[in-house]
């Protein structure tokens, strides 16, 4: 048999023997440094989104369980991936297309569920957020893996519940790290600062920063460097949302408020909100209570909102410069969030962006080439994407999709801007605009149905001279409600339908008067 195979392969007998022996003895498997297998031909990406934003799946070696919890770039274009199993891998060749020379090196291990990595250029440490602490790591003896695991901050408590996650931002402009601390359970806060956001100063001291969090799924910055996090549906949260955190504010879930006693810098404990109300009504009573900036309507766009990225690529990621992108672990997708400041607070629109990720989307980070790297895991919750974990990249193909670029509130309706010139006829036809509104109950029990439904009337639709904008006048704008707009029949000048003909605008404050 060996002879026959040799003839077939054209290999010398000795080489074959070695290969055979190695296979039989199981030697061709684990080595410290893992060359990733060649990418397999995946079934073609049939999503219409793929023409504009393609996905590239990074091949992962068989013995690496890359349940992604944190992503960070290191000098030399290497990507550090922190996993829920507590390992940190350094991945080289991530930006290759196709990814044929990807190399994984295990750089650190044994940490407790990493949800956040941040590299500090000044001190050369990689900061990793574990359940109980932020640890900074470094390889000081040049052996190719971290040997220093220094506790940087452990100012919060943990009682041993699965729900007690800690999720960390990158360094902000001040050099601070923001850590969001999940409650002990949906309804409990058993250890200090569960349900809070804390900042960690460059000296490692912890500053309690905001209360009222429930179950963050991601934390990141907008283009100005302000801090936002993804909140998940549950008690006091009718739906998932992108929320803005400012120093001293209260995000709405009161169970962790007992820790105000350990946070004198935060001032008086906020009063408990009234269950069964609407959050815009409660927020009017308590200036510290901040409604979510943009609601991600539950079940429609996603139901487990996660990682945050903001396009800072100067056009390398396409037309959505400075817009924000949030993943959804359950729906295995990414949606676009565009903020608008009205009366000093954020509100804005949520528009679907890209679906079909192969596992549950968790952390996201933009690369130097503008693409967004997506870390994925679905353990414990399940996801539309069938894989247990994955690492993918979303790359702009250079083609601009026909999309609603933005939806902004005006004093009498909305300005809709588009990525391509409109077909004036379809964009002027009022019948092509369908709007409905609803609110969520702000309540102590889990989630909320859509309530207070209305259907405002579209009174006019006026296309701008450059045909990139439509101003719609809406009769019946609703404070505190999601305004869901469907425009499937509005076409581009060359007759294309919208890639995503839907937008969900969260309206907290009206725009006053006509300033024109």
């Amino acid at each position, binding site marked *: 048999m060996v002879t026959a195979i040799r003839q077939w392969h054209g290999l010398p007998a000795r080489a074959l023997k070695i290969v055979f022996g190695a296979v039989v*003895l*199981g030697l061709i498997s*684990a080595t410290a440094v893992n060359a990733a297998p060649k990418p397999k031909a995946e079934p073609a990406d049939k999503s219409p989104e793929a023409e504009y934003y393609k996905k590239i799946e990074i091949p992962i070696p068989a013995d690496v369980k890359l349940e992604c919890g944190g992503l960070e770039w290191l000098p030399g274009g290497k990507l550090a991936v922190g996993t*829920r*199993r*507590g390992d940190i891998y350094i991945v080289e060749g991530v930006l290759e297309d196709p990814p044929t020379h990807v190399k994984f090196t295990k750089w650190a*291990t*044994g*940490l*407790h*569920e990493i949800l956040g990595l941040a590299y500090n250029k000044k001190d050369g440490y990689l900061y990793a957020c*574990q359940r*109980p*602490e932020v*640890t900074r790591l470094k390889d000081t*003896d040049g*052996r190719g893996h*971290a*040997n*220093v*695991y*220094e*506790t940087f901050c*452990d*100012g919060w*408590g*943990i*009682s*041993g*519940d*699965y*729900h007690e996650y800690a999720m960390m931002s990158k360094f902000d402009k001040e050099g601070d790290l923001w850590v969001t601390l999940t409650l002990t*359970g949906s309804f409990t806060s058993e*250890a200090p600062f569960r349900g809070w956001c804390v900042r960690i100063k460059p000296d490692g001291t912890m500053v309690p920063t905001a209360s009222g969090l429930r179950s963050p799924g991601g934390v990141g910055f907008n283009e100005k460097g302000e801090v936002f996090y993804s909140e998940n549906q549950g008690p006091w949260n009718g739906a998932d949302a992108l929320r803005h955190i400012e120093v001293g504010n209260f995000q709405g879930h009161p169970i962790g408020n007992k820790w105000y006693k*350990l946070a004198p810098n935060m001032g008086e404990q906020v009063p408990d909100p009234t269950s069964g109300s609407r959050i815009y009504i409660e927020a009017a009573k308590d200036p510290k209570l901040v409604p979510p900036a943009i609601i991600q309507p539950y079940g429609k766009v996603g139901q487990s909102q996660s990682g945050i990225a903001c396009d800072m690529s100067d056009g390398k990621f396409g037309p959505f410069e400075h817009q924000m992108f949030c993943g959804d672990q359950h729906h295995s997708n990414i949606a676009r969030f565009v903020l608008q400041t009205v009366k000093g607070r954020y509100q804005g629109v949520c528009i679907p962006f890209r679906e079909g990720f192969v596992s549950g989307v968790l952390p996201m980070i933009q690369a130097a080439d503008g693409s967004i790297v997506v870390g994925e895991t679905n*353990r*414990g*919750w399940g996801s539309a994407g069938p894989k247990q974990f994955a690492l993918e990249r979303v790359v702009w193909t250079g083609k601009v999709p026909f999309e609603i670029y933005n939806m902004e509130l005006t004093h009498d309706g909305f300005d809709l801007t588009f990525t391509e010139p409109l077909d004036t006829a379809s964009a002027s036809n009022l019948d092509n605009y369908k709007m409905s509104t609803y609110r969520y109950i702000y309540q102590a029990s889990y989630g909320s149905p859509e309530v207070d439904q209305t259907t405002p009337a579209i009174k006019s639709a006026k296309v701008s001279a450059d045909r990139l904008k439509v101003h719609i006048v809406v009769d019946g704008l609703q404070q505190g409600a999601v305004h869901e707009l469907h425009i499937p029949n509005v076409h581009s000048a060359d007759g294309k339908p919208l890639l995503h003909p839907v937008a969900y605008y969260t309206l907290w404050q009206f725009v006053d008067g006509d300033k024109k």
Partner: protein
Amino acid sequence: MRERIWRRWAFGAVAFACIAGIVPGAASAAEKVAPIVPGYVRLKDEAKASAAEQGEVLLGELNCLQCHAAPGQKRIFTKGAPDLSAAGSRMTPQYIRAYLTDNHGMKPGTTMPDSFHASDAQAKEGAIDFLTNYLVSLGGPIKPSGEEGNSLMADHGRTLFQQVGCAACHAPDKKANTTIPSIPFPKLAEKTTVEHLAAFLLDPAKVRPAGRMPSLNLTKDEARDIAVYLLKDQLDNPQNKLAGPAHTSGLNYIYYEVQAHTAAVDKIDPLRPKSKGRIDHFGLEFPGHRNDNFAVKYSGAIHIPKTGKYTFYTNSDDGSRLYIGKQLVVDNDGVHPVGEKSGEIELAEGDQPITVTYFQGGGEFILSVSWEGPGITKQEIPSDVLFSVGGVPMVPLENEAFTVDPQKAQMGKMMFNAIGCAACHKVPGTKPMTERKALAELNPDAATGCLGDQIPKSVPNYQLNADQRAALKAAVKEAKDLDKPLEPKQEAMHLAAAFNCFACHARDGAGGPTADRAPLFVMSAEFDMGDEGRLPPKLTGVGAKLQPAAMEKIIFENKLHIRPVLATRMPTFHKEAAGAIVDAFVKADAGPTLPVPTFNQIAAKDGRTLFGNKGLGCVNCHGINGVKSMGMPAPDLGNCGERLTYTWFHELLVDPAHINPATRMPGFWPKGEVAFKTLAGGAEDSQIAALWEYLSLGKSMALPAGLTPAEGDELIPTDAPIVHRSFFPPPVNRSISVGFPEMVHCAFDADTVRMNVAWKGRFLDARPSWEDRGGNRLRPLGTDVIDMPPGPSFAVLASPNAEWPLPKPTYKDQAERNLGGHFKGYVLDKEDRPIFHYILNGIDIHEQPLPVLKTGGADLERKFDLSSKQPVKDLYFLAAQGKQIEAKSPGEWVVDGKLTLKLGAKPTGTGQPIIRDGDKGTKQLLIPISLDNGTASFNVEMSW
């Protein structure tokens, strides 16, 4: 009525007189099977032992010395007979009567003689009636059977019976005509119930203290299935249907896979079951359940021992409910972390239906159910009060109702003493009344007597055959020599014959599976290992092969078994009975020995290389400590150093075929030629020594090259330590476990800042924190777990008597949480071993746990370096806490008789150690620390 009793009385009394009297009678006429003693046949036919030697074995196995005294004898291992002190509880009255009436007919080949062989029929019947009443009065009558059986259980029982080793002594099938006679069964289906037979199989020595029947280390289910097989005639007993429903031990459970939010029975009942089964208590230890989103319903009955008020408790995560009948007694429902709730109920004595429902969402899953009531302190509900009702029980054949007549029983007891039953059978309060001649005074050639052609009425009839009589006669003739101990080799053979080691093992030309039985010895794995993979090893030379302590463990403690590929199990013998066998083997096989090599770490390392696939490749066939070999499933050598003698090991390695001609193990130094000249001195002897030193590390053996732990989430340190953070018990929420390849491990609590626990053997299975949402606590996988003192490692005390600080469940600030200082992380040294760093009151403390290799395993050392810029006062190190701390020598203490602590050489900054009273009756060992020059340095070695 009264008259009738007296009539029976008088009748029995006559019978008593007739039997006890010395009335000459006729020899037995019918052709009956001679007593079966397989070991005697082995000595006779295979070992070609002398007639006197054979006779000596028979004298023991037939209990001759129980009547015929032989004071000072050193050669006979008298068997004794079953303990009858609870005979009535486990044998049916009809069987007792039938067996006494015709024991050789009921159990052909029994070693019990017939005492009524020449009795007058009427007298015999009366006497047996007395004895039956007496024996039934001992704990009886037997309780009605509750076990339900079926043919599947019987088939499984048959397979077990044939493979695990029962059939090595007993007939593989009822009719099998075996080369070596098989130990007979009586009419078991008439004799007893599944419950009693299963209980007997699990612990044979309880009823048969002679220990000839060993325990086959069966599980409860296996024992029950074998019992069903042996009693399978009962499956068709028409009386089954007449009996009430079966009261089968254990509960029925139904398992559902569902995202439930309540344990309410009306919400669970309509669900579609995923599986069903039986379980002996309210718990989650049933196979095949997943870890989240499931529900279970347990139903059955509980035996209420006494009327009164009962409190039931459920402790669960998530929800549970307990119902008695339809009444909800405990409502512990809803999604919640582990928590206990209770409920009270008045219950009447008797059996009450009980139902417990439970559901699990995500995270940890826990269920336990307790009760408290009249005379019952709060405890988990024991399995013996839980059962379920339904189905058809297996009733013993010819079942009859029986009421003990106390007067007859009294007569029966006197008879039990008078006719000699009490000589062999132990029953408290009885003693044999018959006077028999001493062994030395017997005339073996007499025509009448046990051995004669004529067996008088007064003498029990053993149904001996001619060979047996000849052997016994030869032994009795030489009875004067019985005070001379046997030669060690003879003694080993006698014991191997008495305990029938020969059924499975060969030794010095005798024993081992005969051709007819050999096919029953099979391999439990698919692999070509020839006879090595299916036959038990030879016992020739075993006394020089195994260390005596290892033999004790193998023979008496069900430990150190290394041949899981054999379907046949090494049984566990009763040490009280067979204890002499270890010493006999050791003495019989004694020979010249080689000195055991002195342990040397470098040699052990080379031994590891030689063992691996870059050396001699032992790993091709042998695994280590549960990690499978690269190929053949030859014995795991993890416990080699504990099991083997060095002399035998050396001899085996020099020439394996010399020890076992059929072995597949090759020689590695053909004619002394050395393949790996740079390792372990490059010579055959030194390399064998190096292999030995490596193997002597036991559980602390680092895995050799070529062996890789199985795929899975178990963390196995191989070349470098593993540092792993997780939740840990008792509630340690910031645990850092350190696993060393030397298989000694510890876990550090970074919240309280203390070493929490140390252990040996397997490290951790990370699965609980790597599955689902990751909230579960990891636990030491290994054994020999040492709990460290509960408080911080270091503390500043106001006085040497001040209480050692203890962590509280809640804390007001970080200092109160981090009692032992502020944890600052760890640095890995060049060998990736972590050095922990924490700061207490401005004192930098570095602590490094390190393995210390030694023969038999590794111990743990804790190395401390302290430094401070400020002066330090009143700092103490809590070295140990326990119920007892004894100073062994200066700087050395023993804690609770288990853990030895030793302060390493040349400590700096340590003061005079103090043993003082601690919390809750404990003792604490404190070492005062002073940092006179700004530093202190010491280490503490822990061995256990």
